[in-house]
């Protein structure tokens, strides 16, 4: 039995229906701590390799600047130049530290997963004979036998038998799940353990390319590629870096003309303060942390691109069953026909459902629990069959009760010599119209057959969905309920749940067509699915979340897998995608806005001492102690702000669903105006301290 992820730091998964409280995805507490900064320091230093740094243009520029000032410093050391050089190196290291800390959080999870991937042996079934081989020798198509106590040796589909499986190694969920051949619950994951029974599994994955292997690679960020938005932002940051590089390089001839040539150290300090180092340092950490936030909610995104796409979703396709309603219809009400006592109806309904072990049947018994006596011992149960579309019970003494589809029960009553009740037909129509399912209850005895009444079965819509859909609407996301129900039933449930649109009597092809149509119109579509039938639609959707309980085909087709198999999580995924982009945008704005204050610190420090340029001292609005302390303070601020913002980068900017304009106004105020003001205060405070260093004041 492998160690479980659940014991490491995977949060308790949300069960279906436990919608996260409004606006705050139930994120686990951040794993960020001051200690992780220190423990990840070696990793950060390893990242100083220029070959890896060159992928981050802004920080690479700082690295080159640091080397330049180090050389300048070696040639002509002073307290000031040593201090500035140290701060520049710190800036680079802090940037690497941000990335290293973000990666470190995934690494802990990867280690736990790796323990699940222990060397196992497989019982290979060939020509009816079992041989024991190492799991690594399995190839797709091989059949293996797994019995209680065995670890499933590789990813595959159950082709024979049914078993309960402990998937906690992958999902962190300790409750066993049923895996059986055929249908949509046939997929098993290598590394999970069979708890009972025996299954034959056909292997579908190459060794080393199993789901577990992919998970490990994903959470480690080993195959991380830049997402489109990261590339776009990098392009902008690179061009800002070029502009500022030009501004600083050309400043020297201007300064020479003015009569105050600047030292290399000061020019590099100015450059590093101006280029967007804050966002440049935190950009990759933000991306890694975004993936990590999904992993913490037990969702595996196959690429960062998918996470980003989640933020852009404009249409959500939600399966009715399991997402909008509690999967099963439940008995909601009893409607007796004229002349029948409600208690008699309840007793008959209960009797006829005792043999019915479906959730619907049990709900009828529950509803009628208090009514009627116990079943008589000699009673003979008539189970439901697709042919009769009825279930019931034959009691001693010739009395029978039946419950089932209206037409079937009516026919049964006629056969027994009775007449269908006209008021029952009206009730049946009414219930159908409301989206419910009517079940007719009837009895027959020596005195003939008669209809007793109707059981109203209803899809129960989960609590809190309406509010959730309202929030989605405010975010500009349209919800479409997909169901196999007839249009009337579907419309009634849709109205109750508050979705925007409904696709009734949906076939997998309809679903695919709907997605294509929406995409033609420029929409971005997200959906969940678990069946093999869903695979084409999952692949077509911009974000396709496959349920872990689903088939291998579905999991291959989607670009995310939800280990908890909770369809409502789609909403959280969208919010995480948005949060990722917002965090990038907010920190970029903050980074650029910071420059204004840095100018007011550095420009007067550089030039106010030149004869004829003394008026520039008026720009020293912060009243910084000296030219050197001003420049040093700006550089220190620039480095320190990176460390201070690491928690924000990892946690993500707080996101509350609201209309775009309100969100923009809020973030502009906080990160735009805040970004303007913060460095004025920060640099001044640092200067108060820096001025105490001998030779600085």
């Amino acid at each position, binding site marked *: 039995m492998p160690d479980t992820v659940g014991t490491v730091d995977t949060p308790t998964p949300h069960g279906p229906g436990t919608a996260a409280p409004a606006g705050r995805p139930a994120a686990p507490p951040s794993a960020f701590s001051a200690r992780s900064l220190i423990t990840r320091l070696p990793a950060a230093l390893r990242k100083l390799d220029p070959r890896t740094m060159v992928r981050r243009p802004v920080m690479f520029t700082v690295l080159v600047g640091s080397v330049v000032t180090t050389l300048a410093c070696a040639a002509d050391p002073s307290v000031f130049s040593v201090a500035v050089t140290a701060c520049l190196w710190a800036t680079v290291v802090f940037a690497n530290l941000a990335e290293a800390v973000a990666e470190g959080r995934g690494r802990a999870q990867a280690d736990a997963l790796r323990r699940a991937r222990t060397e196992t042996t497989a019982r290979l079934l060939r020509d009816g004979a079992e041989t024991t081989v190492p799991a690594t020798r399995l190839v797709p198509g091989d059949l293996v036998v797994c019995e209680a106590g065995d670890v499933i040796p590789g990813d595959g589909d159950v082709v024979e038998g049914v078993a309960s499986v402990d998937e906690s190694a992958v999902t962190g969920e300790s409750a066993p799940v049923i895996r059986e051949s055929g249908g949509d619950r046939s997929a098993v994951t290598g590394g999970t353990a069979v708890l009972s029974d025996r299954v034959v599994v056909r292997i579908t994955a190459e060794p080393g390319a199993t789901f577990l292997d992919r998970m490990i690679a994903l959470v480690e960020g080993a195959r991380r590629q830049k997402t489109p*938005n990261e*590339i*776009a*932002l990098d*392009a*902008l940051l690179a*061009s800002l870096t*070029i*502009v*500022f590089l*030009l*501004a*600083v390089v*050309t*400043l020297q*001839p*201007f300064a*020479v*003309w*003015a*009569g105050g040539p600047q030292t290399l150290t000061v020019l590099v300090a*100015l450059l590093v303060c*101006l280029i967007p180092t804050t966002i440049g340092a935190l950009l990759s950490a933000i991306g890694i942390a975004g993936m990590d936030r999904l992993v913490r909610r037990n969702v595996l995104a196959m690429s960062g691109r998918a996470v*980003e796409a989640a*933020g*852009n979703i*404009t249409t959500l396709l939600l399966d009715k069953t399991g997402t909008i309603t509690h999967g099963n219809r439940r008995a909601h009400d009893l409607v007796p026909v004229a002349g029948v006592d409600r208690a008699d109806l309840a007793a008959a309904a209960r009797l006829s459902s005792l043999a019915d072990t479906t959730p619907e049947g049990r709900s009828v018994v529950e509803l009628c629990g208090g009514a009627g006596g116990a079943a008589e011992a000699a009673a003979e149960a008539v189970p439901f069959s697709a042919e009769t579309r009825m279930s019931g019970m034959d009691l001693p003494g010739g009395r029978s009760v039946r419950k089932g589809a209206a037409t079937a029960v009516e026919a049964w009553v006629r056969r027994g010599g009775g007449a269908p009740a006209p008021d029952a037909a009206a009730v049946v129509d009414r219930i159908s119209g409301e989206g419910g399912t009517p079940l007719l209850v009837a009895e027959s005895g020596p005195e003939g057959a008669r209809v007793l009444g109707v059981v109203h079965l209803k899809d129960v819509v989960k609590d809190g969905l309406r509010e959730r859909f309202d929030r989605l*609407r*405010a*975010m*500009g*996301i349209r919800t479409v309920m997909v169901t196999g129900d007839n249009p009337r039933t579907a419309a009634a449930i849709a109205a109750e749940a508050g979705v925007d649109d409904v696709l009734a009597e949906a076939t997998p092809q309809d679903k695919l067509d709907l997605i294509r149509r929406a995409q033609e119109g*420029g*929409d971005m579509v997200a959906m969940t699915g678990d069946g093999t039938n869903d695979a084409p639609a999952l692949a077509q959707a911009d974000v396709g979340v496959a349920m872990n309980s689903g088939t291998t085909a579905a999991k291959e087709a989607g670009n995310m897998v939800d280990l908890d198999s909770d369809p409502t999580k789609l909403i959280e995924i969208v919010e995480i*995608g*948005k*949060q990722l*982009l*917002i965090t*990038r*945008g907010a920190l*970029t704005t903050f980074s650029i806005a910071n420059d*204004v204050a840095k*100018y007011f610190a550095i420009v007067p420090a*550089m*030039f106010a001492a030149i004869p*004829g*340029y*003394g*008026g*520039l001292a*008026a*720009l020293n609005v912060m009243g910084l102690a000296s030219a050197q302390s001003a420049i040093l303070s700006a550089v220190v601020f620039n480095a320190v702000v990176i460390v201070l913002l690491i928690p924000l980068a990892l946690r993500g900017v707080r996101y509350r669903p609201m*209309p*775009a*304009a309100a*969100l*923009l106004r809020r973030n*502009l105020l906080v*990160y735009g105006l805040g970004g303007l003001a913060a460095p004025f205060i920060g640099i001044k405070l640092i200067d108060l301290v820096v001025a105490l260093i001998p030779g600085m004041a």
Partner: protein
Amino acid sequence: MSDTVAGLLQIALLTSVLAAVYAPFGDYLARVLTGGRHLRAEHALYRLCGVDPDTEQRWPVYLRSVLVFSLLSVLVLYTLQRVQPWLPLNQGRAPLDPDQAWNTAVSFVANTNWQSYSGEAAMGHLTQMAGLAVQNFLSAAVGLAVAIAFVRGLLRGRTDLLGNFWVDLTRSVVRVLLPLSVIGGLALVAGGVVQNLAAPTEYATVAGGAQTLPGGPVASQEVIKELGTNGGGFYNANSAHPFEGPAAWVSLFQILLILLIPVCLTRAYGTLVERSGAGTRRHGYAVLAAMGVVFALSLAATTAAEVHAQGAATQAAGAAMEGKEVRFGTWLSALFATATTGTSTGAVNAFHDSFTPFGGGVVMLNMLLGEVTPGGVGSGLYGMLVLALLAVFLGGLMIGRTPEYLGKRIGPREVKLVSLYVLTTPALVLTGTGIAMALPSTPDSMANADVRPHGFSEVMYAFASAANNNGSAFAGLSADTYVFNTGLGLAMILGRLLPIVFVLTLAGALAAQRPAPATAGTLPTHTALFTTMVVATTLVITGLTFFPALALGPIAEGLN
């Protein structure tokens, strides 16, 4: 009437006339630039040139047409100047030197109209009319064509066709610039602007001396100089010359001509947006508002700096009057300066070199912002829209979506092109000024080399003006040197054509996209909040780039 009241009345008059013509003229622009039938004259022209006016061009073809046309124009204009003495009507003026001819040719084709020559002394009437005036029309028309092609790129979906450059060019000239020039030219003549083909007239002055008064086709050139945001004066003194600006209302009328097309083009844009269904008219208003806010800030700053100038001499005069149009006062000079540098015009009715340090700094900043307030004919609109895309990118991220403008996603390719566009002119200004300042010969060209910040401002102003295609000068700089003619020429042609390359490529990228529908989650791009963002982006992105340089020029001078 006090200067203040007069100044405010002038601003109010200008604003109300612009407001009155805004909708009708803007809608007219939208109509003639995007469809309808060809005029008979246009048809004849298309047949003559072998153009099929009903075939649209793919974006690379459109771009190639613009580039080839512009480079051919440079060649023609260069030749005209070099063979000047052998052509009629030129009064035997000598050919221009190669470097000056290159500089002038590039300058007029690039809608810059930087003049390192003295108009009345160097150019013959034919060169003025067939060369310079023709380019005044064509360079403005090219700007309009590129702007309209860019708007098509924004509004169309899933295509690579951006329209037909030759049709856009022809219509801009025939239906927009020519008719307005005729009307405006007549008004100028009525106001006392000179218009003749006569040789210079000799006069005896009251003091008994002899004076030569050069005449010429001034009014006809004057009107397109302003209307096409060109700025190249017939006379060296430009609109400060009494033959170009004989009365205060003529000066105000010229400001109106300068602002007319750039301002009303935002209405045309809004109308086209609404017609396409991608958004509402308010998209045009939002762009205009961003332009207007910066314009108003700049006008207020310049006026305040000029009116409240410090110093004994200026106190005695009531304002900084040296180098100003003494007949019309400081307010009109400030208004003219703001209009001429906020558009890529560069015509002047007072010398910017004579402005107070802060006043001169602000007009320089207007150019450094990329000529978008409201910018040159066409170039102002596409320049501002590119900045709007940049604002959309930053703002869109902050609402958690891949940024979109009018349903078009601002992805990696778009951001790269926007970045390159925004990068171009600052790179040209900084590199040009940097090289110039590093050359030992440069101080010789400065009029104020002893006041070091001011001398520096003169050089930086020249490159800011050239690279942003403005054309006005801190006239203190003697720029007719081999080095400046060549360097500024390069800055002008690159500052014009590189942005066009990027903006048309961007148009191609946008046109190819499938537009996404607007939802409640889409960043609204027609609101006051958005305008604020565009203004902030404009000021912060460009302002930050030039702050250290400006600190060593106008800011240092002003604070001392």
